[in-house]
């Protein structure tokens, strides 16, 4: 009887989304009057006992370099064994979680809710609120099976820290042979992954061409933000596909979303409307985005954004 949290690591470090999952798992465990444990697969340089600060009592590790590249089949088998005593298993709903959680659900016949945005309601049954229609609505889903799996949306749950040190113990686990061979990895280092970013600066067709993207990237750099774009911008290859946000791209929920030269079509809004604060800069006062925004400037991005950059520099004491 416990909650097991899958902790996803990248380059030997715990991902931010995994700290969120740890807090979520610990608070779910508190609701169920039980404890939360975690599992980490692959070699990790980070001190895993810090997970205690996020409410995890014990961390199970399989510290084998074979697990540094992930194969959903292999990970599922190991996690399924480790989860034998767990009632609830928590993942982050990131690319890794999306590849493992469904497999584990089918293997354990454990009902799965992906894209969770709140703690489960356990007073009557076990109901998890999730984002649907790319953020245009929520569904409250009851899980009917004894074992339950939840994949928590990144940026949907606050990280809270207390004192605490988790016990770290190696799990004696057999590693099955992987069917997936990783030939190469192409990672943009030093950039904040879009799904985890607190602040996102996004550009649309209003920026006229890729040569003008300095406006977006300069502001983003200054704010420690990730960059995003509207669909046509990715389609015409001004920006890479993975920056495309919206109903048919990535759905994100940063603390602050700054949209520059984006009209705010319904399909775009669907992927960004869970952002806490939305700022819109558009020269057209009738742009639909203003209806979904918290703050706005009606004006030419080419004039307004450089002034914003100067003002942020001033705020940060950089000029």
């Amino acid at each position, binding site marked *: 009887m416990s909650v097991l949290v899958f902790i996803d690591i990248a380059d030997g470090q715990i991902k931010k989304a995994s700290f969120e999952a740890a807090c979520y798992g610990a608070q779910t465990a508190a609701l169920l009057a039980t404890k939360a444990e975690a599992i980490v697969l692959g070699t990790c340089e980070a001190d895993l006992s810090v997970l205690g600060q996020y409410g995890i009592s014990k961390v199970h590790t399989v510290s084998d370099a074979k697990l540094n590249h992930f194969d959903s089949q292999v990970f599922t088998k190991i996690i399924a064994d480790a989860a034998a005593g767990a009632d609830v298993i928590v993942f982050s709903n990131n690319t890794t979680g999306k*590849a493992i959680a469904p*497999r584990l659900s089918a293997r354990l016949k454990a009902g799965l809710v992906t894209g969770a945005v709140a703690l489960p309601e356990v007073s009557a049954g076990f109901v998890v609120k999730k984002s*649907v*229609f790319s953020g245009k609505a929520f569904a*409250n889903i009851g899980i009917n099976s004894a074992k339950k799996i939840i994949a928590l949306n990144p940026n949907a749950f606050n990280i809270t820290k207390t004192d605490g040190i988790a016990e770290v113990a190696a799990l004696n686990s057999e590693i099955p042979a992987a*069917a997936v061979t990783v030939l190469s990895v192409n990672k*943009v280092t030093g950039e904040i992954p879009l799904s985890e970013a607190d602040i996102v600066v996004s550009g649309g067709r209003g920026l006229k061409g890729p040569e003008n993207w300095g406006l977006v990237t300069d502001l983003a750099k200054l704010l420690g933000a990730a960059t995003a774009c509207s669909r046509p911008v990715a389609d015409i290859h001004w920006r890479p596909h993975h920056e495309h946000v919206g109903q048919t791209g990535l759905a994100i929920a940063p603390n602050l979303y700054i949209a520059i030269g984006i009209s705010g079509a319904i399909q775009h809004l669907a992927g960004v409307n869970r952002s806490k604060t939305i700022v819109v800069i558009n020269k057209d006062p009738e742009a639909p985005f203003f209806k979904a925004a*918290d*703050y706005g400037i009606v004006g030419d991005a080419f004039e307004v954004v450089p002034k914003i950059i100067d003002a942020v520099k001033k705020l940060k004491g950089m000029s």
Partner: protein
Amino acid sequence: MKILICISKTPDTTAKIAFTDNNTKFAADGVQWIINPYDEWYSLVRAIELKEADPSVVLHLVNVGGADSEPIIRKALALGGDEAIRVNADQSDSYFTAAQIAQIAKEGSYDLIFTGKETIDYNGSSIGGMIAEILDIPFVSHAVKFDLASSQTTIVREIDGGEETVQVNLPLVVSCQKGMAEQRIPNMKGIMGARTKPLKVVEPIATEALTSVVAFDLPPAKAGVKLVSADNPEELVRLLSEEAKAI
């Protein structure tokens, strides 16, 4: 070489999102239905390209849904594909749906199963992984590029903050995402041909549903935008820092 392509029906992206029956059902009245864009634009088109490169490739489409799914199945057949199978059941719980497709996959011994990365209504991202587990075969998710040479596939998949190139042998399940292919529009010949392509209807196998919808909610409306003059962007920065505490 046989490929099974999962096709799901979703409301059009501009559909009004509202609920009925005490917020337990999507208000489908007057809604236009489309093929889930990830299924249509990426997995179906990539499969069609594989058949164009090698005409011996067989493409079967599968949908779990009621008779009202048939228009979107015919539309998919108009783009390409040899025949379609509809499992006559409501697509409610992901596990139930995946179990139906896995059953079809077992019976037809497919080499490759394509799904979209997610549906744009339920945003589950679950079906592909579940099918793979039921069949005990590999699953590569978020594929942005897919190549095939005899029985070996080379796939570029998206990972957090980048991409990975992987190699996997058939059979396997792949979930497809932007980059795999470019959206196509069915032509007249395709539309005419689709009318006579076989569309087989089969009854579902008995499977438990592991989840059920209790109720839907809509997010609270925004309070309204606070506009700042274009001559005074410093004020915006001040508001973001002091009022929204966002920077």
